[in-house]
């Protein structure tokens, strides 16, 4: 029992000295092994506490992030509204809504708002998990946009043409592309979650600012 605790302490020491591969080493131990360590030992390898000055910096950034988020989100929404609204001079059967004098379809309005929210979250939210959620919202918005283009295409259906010639066929390409971008986003999410897990194990926090501060102070040491 004691030897096991010593072994953990030894690997933590080597981890601190940057001599070991983190993923390999953590796979060897179970959570109950770490519980065997005394509180003083645990405190030794906990990340360095953030100093008061740094806490002040972190807090003072909070307000700035709010302002920046609102500005980014509003800017993106405005730009995208202008980009998409005039693309639909002849509405293809989709219901239109009016936003600030611009006519736009429901789907595109949803795309614009979702994209802006996702982008802003990914850029400016401090929590890593929420950043990943933001990325997923952003990518789903583009998926929806690609998907909405496939509806009501002018291609002819190969078999049903003789019975219902007026129906047309929805384009297969946008759906396929939405699927491709979905696959990419799943891969990216998996990778980002792995990284988040790694960072959380090391620094015990999900706040990217705090993580960067810890990493910076490690480098100075």
């Amino acid at each position, binding site marked *: 029992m004691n030897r096991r605790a010593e072994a953990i302490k030894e690997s933590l020491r080597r981890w601190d000295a940057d001599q070991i591969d983190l993923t390999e080493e953590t796979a060897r131990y179970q959570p109950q092994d770490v519980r065997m360590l005394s509180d003083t030992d645990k405190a030794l390898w906990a990340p360095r506490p953030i100093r008061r000055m740094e806490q002040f910096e972190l807090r003072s950034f909070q307000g700035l992030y709010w302002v920046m988020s609102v500005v980014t989100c509003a800017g993106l929404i405005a730009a995208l509204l202008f980009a998409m609204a005039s693309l639909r001079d002849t509405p293809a059967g989709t219901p239109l809504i009016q936003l600030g004098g611009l006519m736009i379809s429901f789907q595109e309005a949803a795309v614009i708002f979702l*994209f802006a929210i996702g982008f802003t979250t990914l850029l400016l939210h401090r929590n890593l998990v929420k950043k990943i959620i933001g990325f997923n919202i*952003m990518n789903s918005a583009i998926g929806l946009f690609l998907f909405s283009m496939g509806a009501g295409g002018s291609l002819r259906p190969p078999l049903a043409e003789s019975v219902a010639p007026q129906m047309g066929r929805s384009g297969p390409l946008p759906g396929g592309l939405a699927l491709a971008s979905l696959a990419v986003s799943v891969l990216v999410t998996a990778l980002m979650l792995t990284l988040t897990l790694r960072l959380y194990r090391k620094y015990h926090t999900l706040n990217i600012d705090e993580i960067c501060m810890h990493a910076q102070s490690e480098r100075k040491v």
Partner: protein
Amino acid sequence: MSWFVHFPLICILLSLLTAAVSIILPEKYARYLTLALLFSVVALSACTLYYDAAIATEAVTYRTGRSGAVWGTELRFSIVEPLTALAFALSMLLCLIGGKTQLTVDVSSHQHGRFYAATSLVLSALLALIYTNDLFIGYVFVEVCTLASCGLMMIKSRGGSATAAMRYMIFSLLGSGLVLLGVALLYDSTGQWLMPNIRIALSALHQTGLYQVPLSITVSLITLGVAIKSGLFPFHYWMPDAYGCATPVASGILAGLVPKAYIFFLIKIIYRVIGRTLFYAAGAADILFVLGCAAIIAGALSAIRENDISRMIACSVAAQIGYVFLGIGIATEWGMDAELFHIYFHALTKPALFLAAAQLSAVSGGSHVFRDLQGSAHRNKLAGVVFTVGAVSMVGLPGLMGFISKAMFATAALSAGNKTFVILIILCVSTVLNAVYFLRTVVRIYTPAPAADPLNVPVKAQPAFAVSGILFVLCNFAIGLHPQPVIDLIVTGLHRFG
């Protein structure tokens, strides 16, 4: 000779295949396989370049699959594409050869297969971005490149690599999101994915004068996305961490090649999709010009502040990216020529600097800090020479590639109208700043260390590093002394590019 046209597709498929196979192979065989792949890509690209430059009279459009027009996907290449592929593959090959020892130190042996798989994937993405004529395929490989680069970065699981990889991923994803939205908007307004078809639709739209605002926003989204991904000022803060923390081979590939491939894709979009007239009319070139100038100065200043050799080289990447965007921002034929030459120059110089810096720090007790590097060039003479040649080339000493690149930018400035003086001043200031941080390092590594220092023992250069270092230096001198063939290829190539 007509079967030479199949080579680009073969290169892409071979790299994808190698990536899949090398992940399950033992370390040694994965390395041999990747080296063989890089040798063959260099050879095949050289053959394609020969075919395009000497035999073909116009760009080759290579259609994959039997369905054409709207449904198929295409590769298109003239001279510039195989030339870029050749430069990138050569740089990657020399990088892998030279960084072997450092790789075994930084990456645990069971991870090597994954490292080589990621390298082959990056190569496949670079080649696909260089050759593709399909906008969506371009986007997909932009993402493949991002994921594989992240793999290369985080495979060294020590130091701050996880933090660096996370910041890199966040910025890359913001960039890809914007690129994808821009590309989707282009598809929405034209209904096409193949670049020439979009170009036809867009020029028709441009002539009618309708939809100017949405088109400008679309152009800006794509440009902004690529700028964020390649780390243009003010989106360059992740760079020193990302490139400074990775293993030197990965740093060389990530800093020298990956951002350049994104920029090459942007150039392709400017020439083949949007058209240069529309791009300049949207005002994107002027914004890139301003940001490029700012990046050159900001990158150089942050490099001067650094106290760590790899981070300093990484900061200088930000300045070089600034040059490349400055070339686009000049908005003339000359600017584009200078910019492409700068891409090749940077791809063949920066990896050498990263490798030499790693060798120098290896003989200084593994420290990257300038204080400890004192006298390291006396301990490892070859690394000192390679670093010095790379550094003075970056500063722009005549006889080396860097000088030609700066001379081309200066020539481009003369025909740039009201931007002339700004460009010339920026070039002068940047040369002085480059000299400050690179020559300071050179002086430091050649200052003899105190005799009592236990590290003060000469070390014989490793044969692998010697081969790649000498080849990098030779390339730099060869093109620096005889730049005309390369410049001719670029000029003719860009005429056939659009």
